[in-house]
């Protein structure tokens, strides 16, 4: 942990405090319950490309997702959480191994309802924090009002990378082209939403009714930064178990530790979980936008 530049960071940390308070106010005013779930957990969520940091016999959570969904399964209608998450080896301009995540969920809703929440949240923050509908980030003006551009992932790839990941999915090419060809060409003067990911890149999202080759997942980009990931949550216990098992297999093949399945989470789905939508937002990146900071380390008091 370095204390370099702590005094210079003060304006950014003041902004951080204001942003976090405004986020909390937004959800509490809309009837969401703030929840805290454990940071040390016996089994991390199985994700192909996310590695958990061990903590004794436990792990530090990579996201609070599975615990939050267990609350949904018990009938909690609107819940949110702001807290630390940990991902092994993720360090860069937009990544720190410990970071702060906001997650919010709605029962009896899908990813469209969550998109409305996201638009309202960003507008609310613009008004509360800057008193204006636009911000200037790294020299570029960004109009934050809810007229956002929603682009199907397939269209964004056909246009910028020349192929359709929905017709023929190639995981390796998908990630690299997303970084090198698609993201740099997204409009940067307003928020952009990439919608409907190939079913193979669905993670914990359900397939789109009537179009099963894509999953109901969207990602919000502001100022070229990926800020929010949202799903219509997968609630089918059979498909969820199959996806976990496939993921564990792929992790094994890739030489990564294959965590055991979270049986308590699966059991809560088996009891019958109503439809739900949810999202995860990187608080540090949100603060970067409002503090006009180029790097994540500028908005966290201490970085590893």
């Amino acid at each position, binding site marked *: 942990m370095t204390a370099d530049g702590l005094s210079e960071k003060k304006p950014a940390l003041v902004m951080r405090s204001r942003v976090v308070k405004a986020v909390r106010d937004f959800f509490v005013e809309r009837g969401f319950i703030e929840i805290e779930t454990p940071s040390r957990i016996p089994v991390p969520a199985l994700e192909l490309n996310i590695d958990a940091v061990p903590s004794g016999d436990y792990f530090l959570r990579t996201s609070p997702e599975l615990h939050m969904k267990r609350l949904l399964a018990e009938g909690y209608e609107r819940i949110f959480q702001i807290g630390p998450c940990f991902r092994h080896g993720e360090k*860069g301009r937009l990544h720190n191994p410990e970071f702060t995540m906001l997650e919010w969920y709605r029962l009896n809703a899908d990813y469209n309802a969550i998109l409305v929440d996201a638009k309202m949240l960003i507008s609310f923050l613009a008004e509360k924090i800057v008193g204006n509908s636009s911000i200037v980030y790294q020299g570029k003006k960004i109009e934050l009002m809810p007229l956002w551009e929603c682009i199907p992932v397939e269209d964004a790839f056909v246009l910028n990378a020349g192929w359709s990941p929905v017709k023929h999915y190639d995981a390796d090419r998908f990630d690299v082209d997303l970084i090198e060809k698609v993201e740099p060409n997204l409009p940067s003067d307003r928020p952009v939403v990439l919608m409907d990911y190939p079913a193979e890149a669905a993670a914990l999202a359900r397939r789109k009714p009537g179009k099963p080759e894509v999953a109901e997942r969207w990602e919000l980009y502001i100022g070229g930064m990926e800020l929010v990931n949202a799903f219509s949550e997968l609630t089918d216990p059979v498909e969820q178990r199959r996806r976990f098992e496939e993921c564990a297999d792929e992790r094994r093949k890739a030489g990564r530790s294959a965590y055991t399945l979270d049986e308590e989470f699966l059991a809560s789905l088996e009891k019958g979980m109503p439809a739900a939508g949810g999202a995860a937002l990187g608080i540090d990146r949100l603060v970067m936008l409002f503090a006009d900071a180029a790097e994540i380390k500028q908005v966290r008091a201490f970085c590893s």
Partner: protein
Amino acid sequence: MYSVGDLRKGLRIEIEGVPYLVTEFSFLKPGKGQAVYTCRLKNLLTGSAMTKSYRSNESFGEPNVEEKKMRYSYKEGEDFVFVDESYEQITIRAEVLGDQKYFLSEDMPVEGLFFNGQAIEITLPFFVEKKIIQTDPGLRGNTATNVMKPAKIEGDYEIPVPLFVSQGDVIRIDTRTSEYVDRVR
């Protein structure tokens, strides 16, 4: 062996027998996707640069490179002889030094970089002082620094200097760019 997780600015790696220096590094990871590590690499043998992207399962060799503090001793034919800290003489070919050979002076401390025992780079002090041995008469009073004229330093090396610099003056040179910095006296 290095893994992609070891990559950082300033690291030296080996790819297919060639040593490279990582001059820029970025970690990018799309949501739920795999990490992509993008590097700007400088080929330490040729000096050329390239950009490469790597995935998390790739690995790199650790080049057998060694840094040595040395002092310049004397010129022998086309070669240059240095002495290291254990008083061993090390002969460096002129092409390894490039233009930097004109900025050497006796007993100057330098850093040598060796790959598999072969010298690949000699780093001089960033600034050296050299006397002008020949240039057109200076225009006294003209202190503009944007108009340049050629001047020769010891060793007949030609370097652009401002008009007010005269023969016999001592100037400071940036050895990284081979450019005039200022007049010392």
